[in-house]
């Protein structure tokens, strides 16, 4: 149990260091407060939605009525009968977005065929579309009894999600917060190397595994507490948990492990504690292209490919999905991806950390 003693020491070094702890928890909390508060916190007002109904059938009218009955939506009058009218008003800024119901809607509904609806919004304000998309999908599915061609599985109804923006931001910021573990883990390892503490410990009969466990396990309670805080604060600010909170927690846990693994790698490679600032060269761009703050849908395909290869976008997408009601099977690929990354990063981290023991 030598690793336990090393781990206890490292945990004490973390929780007795108010600056480190403040940074670790404070920064993402500040982000959470700013983003979620900017998104309206828990007091979300309805979104004004315009409709273009080219089908003009009984079914389309009934669908529009259903949409109007949703708390999160306030229907604009009048209902356009031609798409060009809605587009003109959108471009003129008279409306924020419109839902286009194409002709053939009723027929497709009766034939139980896939229905394609178009939600048009201003590019300058993509969030509003993102907020409404799952609501419309949910209402559409329930109303029509068909699965629309959108990759969101529904559980319950969209009305359970009080504020889609908060449900968008909170998981992203939580993952960003857990990415800060990269810098913290790297800082502790590099600092102990720089000050010679690791060298001193290497003169004791502790084995490599004692150090590896001793320098990774203390971050587990930090990771758990951080995740609980992010989820708690997120819920206080209006995060609606429709799905399984445990699944979301598991995703956060896995991405936290990935961050600790990267931290071990950086901490073993950089020469001094001050150089752990290099972690931020990875953290910020990775957070940017992982959809923590804004969607990556409109990014160039090359960047999307890079983002897709990294673990963070999978953690963010999967945690958003399970919080919004998706089943675990719907995120199983993201889950495997995260497990794979955690194993690879820890393996590389262990190899590099071991190399620091004897030169």
């Amino acid at each position, binding site marked *: 149990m030598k690793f336990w003693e*090393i781990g206890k020491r490292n945990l*004490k070094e973390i929780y*007795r260091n108010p600056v480190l702890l403040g940074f670790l928890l404070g920064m993402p909390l500040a982000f959470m407060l700013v983003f979620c508060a900017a998104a309206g916190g828990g007091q979300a007002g309805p979104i004004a939605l315009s409709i273009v109904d080219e089908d003009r059938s009984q079914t389309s009218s009934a669908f529009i009525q259903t949409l109007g009955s949703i708390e999160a939506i306030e229907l604009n009058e009048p209902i356009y009968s031609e798409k060009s009218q809605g587009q003109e008003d959108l471009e003129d800024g008279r409306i924020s977005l419109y839902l286009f119901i194409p002709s053939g809607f009723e027929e497709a509904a009766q034939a139980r065929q896939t229905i394609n609806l178009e939600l048009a919004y201003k590019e300058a304000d993509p969030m509003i579309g993102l907020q409404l998309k799952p609501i419309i999908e949910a209402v559409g599915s329930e109303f029509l009894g068909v699965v629309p061609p959108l990759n969101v599985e529904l559980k319950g109804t969209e009305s359970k999600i009080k504020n889609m923006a908060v449900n968008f931001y909170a998981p992203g910021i939580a993952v960003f917060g857990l990415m800060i573990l990269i810098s913290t883990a790297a800082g502790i390892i590099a600092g102990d190397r720089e000050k*010679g503490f690791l*060298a001193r410990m290497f*003169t*004791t009969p502790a084995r490599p595994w004692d150090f590896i466990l001793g320098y990774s396990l203390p971050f587990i309670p930090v990771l758990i507490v951080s995740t609980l805080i992010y989820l708690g604060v997120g819920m206080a600010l209006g995060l609606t948990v429709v799905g399984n909170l445990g699944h979301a927690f598991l995703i956060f846990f896995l991405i936290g492990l990935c961050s600790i693994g990267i931290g071990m790698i950086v901490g073993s490679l950089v020469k001094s504690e001050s150089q752990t600032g290099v972690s931020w060269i990875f953290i910020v761009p990775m957070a940017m292209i992982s959809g923590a703050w804004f969607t990556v849908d409109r990014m160039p395909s090359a960047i999307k490919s890079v983002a897709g290869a990294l673990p963070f976008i999978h953690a963010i997408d999967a945690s958003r999905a399970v919080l919004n009601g998706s089943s675990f099977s719907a995120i199983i690929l993201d889950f495997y991806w995260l497990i794979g990354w955690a194993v690879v990063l820890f393996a590389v981290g262990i190899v590099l950390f071991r190399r620091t023991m004897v*030169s």
Partner: protein
Amino acid sequence: MNAVQTFKLTKKFNGLVAVNGVDLEINKGELFSLLGPNGAGKTTTIRMLCCLLKPTKGTASVLGYDVVKTPFSVKRLIGVSPQDTILSERLNCWENLALIGKVHGLSSDEVARRSKELLETMGLMERAKDQVRKFSGGMKRRLSIAMALVSDPQVLFLDEPTLGLDPQARRAIWEYIAELKGKKTILLTTHYMEEADFLSDRIGIIDEGRVVALGTSQELKTNRLEMRSMVVSTENLTAEVIADLQSKYSRLEKTKGRLKIYHKDLDFKGIVDYLHSRGVTVYSAALEQPTLEDVFIQITGKKLRD
């Protein structure tokens, strides 16, 4: 069996030779000092003996265990106080001692008993519950030595144990180390000749990675010191007189009002008479007791603190 033995121990860093074929034999219970200036290879030697560095050539053994082949057997037997006072700054004395003790496999009871003894011996009991980041340099150094001792090691490595301390704190640590003499095998590195002189059973003088002299302090001073030195306090020294002295004697050091002359067969009276004859006022003149510094200067041609 020797407690510590090195066999042509060599370490190169990027082609630069830090330790060059060092052969040492340290007996059980002996306090052996490696004396040398900064960069002489003292710390590199200790780091190889503690299994932190792999020798480029040669090897070493600690109580019969090879440092390269059986590092964990070596680590079980040694205690190390590194050159920089390396502690866990946000832990208190008890916690720092417990960390090292338990990693060495001591039980909680053993750790508590050993820690109590050491904290009392080192005069740290009053501050034992304070985080060590608030400690003075001397207190940290004492705790560092206590950490090296908590596992009751058979061989103790003390790398510059009084580096940067004021004379009072240095003297206190010398006393703690002196108490350990005979009980532990101790390898101490230092560039303070007084420290080596005061504490050591034997001294190895190391320079540029080589052990250039080995013996007790007295042996080194008697056998290796071919030159004696005298100090003269003077006034009216002229350049002409100095040049004359330099031509006659092996080495001359002149500071304001003070002249130090080194030579094999030092003619004390002749020098004083010569100075008087050249009109130099001589306030005092005395033959100096030889020091390890003198030995070092003679062997290497430079000062320990150069």
